[in-house]
């Protein structure tokens, strides 16, 4: 099957006063129709920038795409006019974001914002009344208790969970093909987080959506995604089915992430942290960007490395091969002693 979204060799830099910041470096990622992919990595690794840049949402300047291609359903998106990109964004690709408290405009009614967004998604082809119908229908779909009332509310009158439901309703009103969920539950408390994840899983299923879920939490990703791509310092270091990521992670960074995952039956002081910091992306190392923090560092780690398929559906950008590294547990132990 042809991929729905196909990102090939995408690189993006930010021109800053201090120099060129290499935020995304030679990233390839593709998504099949109906697939739910988790994009995982620590803060600042470029996961949000990657998905925003693909749809023209990163202001340029200072950002600059230096190479690559982004195809949605076979159509090249890079180089499209702003007007054409707006059509793509509203209608085919929907986005929901991290903090529902700040992604709704505080001085307009929820209803006004929904109607405006829905009309924009339809390229202005429907009137306010029809858009209102769609909006109320969507508010019902996201299980808001009293759609008419929420429609007439201002954002500050609603809770975080309700606002996130509204943002989901807004994003999905156009019945898009692809949903980009950028840490949709990070700002919510745990019970609400579970409800929103359930709702998203339900809608993805119902509307036959493909989804990229950005998160720094592998636990959240495991609930909704079938595949995971792990990003580190602007590069994808591992891309595998969710089972493989948990059972046989290959990249030392992925192993580190798993070791840092809190577990209900493990005391908190057992949590492993990965020593060291992100490399300086103003002057990134030529080879593996994780090498500076890696326990298994070898001389060949300074040579540029790209993702390689090691097992069906499982790619990794590391000189280590399956079996060469220790398993998760001992690996994290090693990291701990390093």
């Amino acid at each position, binding site marked *: 099957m042809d991929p729905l979204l196909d990102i090939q060799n995408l690189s993006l830099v930010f021109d800053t006063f201090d120099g060129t910041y290499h935020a995304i470096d030679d990233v390839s990622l593709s998504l099949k129709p109906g697939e739910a992919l988790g994009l995982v990595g620590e803060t600042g690794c470029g996961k949000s920038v990657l998905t925003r840049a693909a749809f023209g949402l990163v202001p340029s300047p200072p950002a600059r795409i230096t190479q690559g291609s982004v195809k949605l359903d076979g159509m090249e998106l890079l180089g499209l006019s702003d007007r054409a990109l*707006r059509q793509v964004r509203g*209608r085919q690709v929907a986005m929901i974001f991290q903090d529902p408290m700040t992604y709704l405009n505080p*001085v307009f009614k929820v209803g006004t914002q929904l109607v405006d*967004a829905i009309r*924009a998604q339809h390229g202005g082809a429907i009137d306010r009344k029809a858009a209102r119908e769609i909006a109320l229908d969507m508010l019902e779909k996201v299980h808001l208790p009293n759609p008419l009332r929420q429609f007439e509310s201002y954002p500050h009158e609603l809770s975080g969970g309700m606002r996130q439901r509204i943002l989901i309703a807004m994003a999905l009103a156009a019945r898009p093909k692809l949903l980009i969920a950028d840490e949709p539950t990070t700002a919510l408390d745990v019970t609400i987080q579970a409800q929103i994840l359930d709702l998203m899983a339900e809608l993805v299923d119902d509307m036959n959506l493909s989804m990229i879920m950005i998160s720094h939490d592998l636990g959240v990703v495991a609930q909704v995604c079938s595949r995971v791509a792990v990003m580190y310092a602007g590069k994808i270091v591992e891309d595998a089915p969710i089972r493989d990521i948990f059972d046989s992670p290959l990249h030392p960074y992925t192993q580190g992430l798993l070791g840092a995952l809190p577990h209900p039956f493990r005391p908190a002081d057992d949590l492993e942290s990965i020593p060291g910091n992100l490399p300086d992306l103003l002057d990134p190392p030529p080879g593996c960007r994780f090498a500076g923090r890696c326990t298994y560092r070898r001389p060949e780690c300074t040579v540029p490395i790209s993702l390689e398929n090691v097992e069906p559906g499982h790619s990794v950008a590391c000189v280590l091969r399956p079996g060469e590294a220790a398993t998760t547990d001992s690996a994290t132990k090693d990291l701990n002693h390093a």
Partner: protein
Amino acid sequence: MLKLIAKRMGLMVVMLLGLAVITFTVANIAPGDPARLAAGPDANQEMVEQIRVERGFDRPLPVRFVLYIEQLLNGDFGTSVYTGRPVAKDIAQFLPATVELVLFSISIAILLGVPLGVIAAVRQNRPIDHAIRLLSVSGVALPMFWLGLMLQWYLALNLDLFPLGGRLGIFSDVPEPITGMISLDAVLRGQFAVVGEALWHMILPATALSLPALAAIIRVNRAEMLEVLGRDYVTNARAQGIGPWRIIAVYSLKNAILPTLAMIGLRFGWMLGGTVLVEGVFDFPGLGLYAAKAAISSDFEPIMAVTLTLGAAFMLINLVIDLLYAVLDPRVRNQI
């Protein structure tokens, strides 16, 4: 809402009383003998002393203050030594001219300042932004009276493009007063040629008066727009495919205009004060010119009355601004 208005009105009375104390004190410790001024240059010492006792100038300051407030509460603003007329009458005559000039000036400042601020923010660090910055820096740096004099000298005197001063040409048909604002009266009376002439007379003084406010409004609105354009809800609106025009002019501006509104309120006060200088330069017969003449001749009661009038006007404007805040921002609305 009504509760807020009532509360603010009550507060205004207190603030006006404070303003009265300050102005009263300053006016009375300023050098000059009010009795001698009132008596006139030809009066002998005996007459001066007589007037001193008659007008109560011999009493202690606090007593005189209480008496003055009592007089005000009876609706009596006193008499101007300079014009020889009741101060209330003078103010009724001169206030509309100043209100007209200030409203005209602030309109210019808002109608130009807000869009220029938006353009500067949207085109940040491009040539147009630098050009607008040049304008706003000049507005802050150039003193009003100097700018007024230069405009008058160059555009009115040398190039003869504008009248030198006044509210209307001497041969014009002054409309029968309704509001006392000539341009508005002329509209109401249907004398449209006079409307144009009245506005024409106001252009230079209004330019001088509005430039500092224009500069301030541009700077605040640019900074606010820059901040708002980086906010998450703007990203979300863009992600929904909403067009740039609607995002800038509606979604962002309605947020950015709130702090700008506060600045407009402050600038109103500056403008009211600025009329003293600008009306003097352009011989514009308003309250500012009246106040300046009263101050020069130590004419105590007009100074008090003008200060209190302008003070009350400033406070009213700020009340209106606060109410506008509530209209524009639902979060403020819920608090009041």
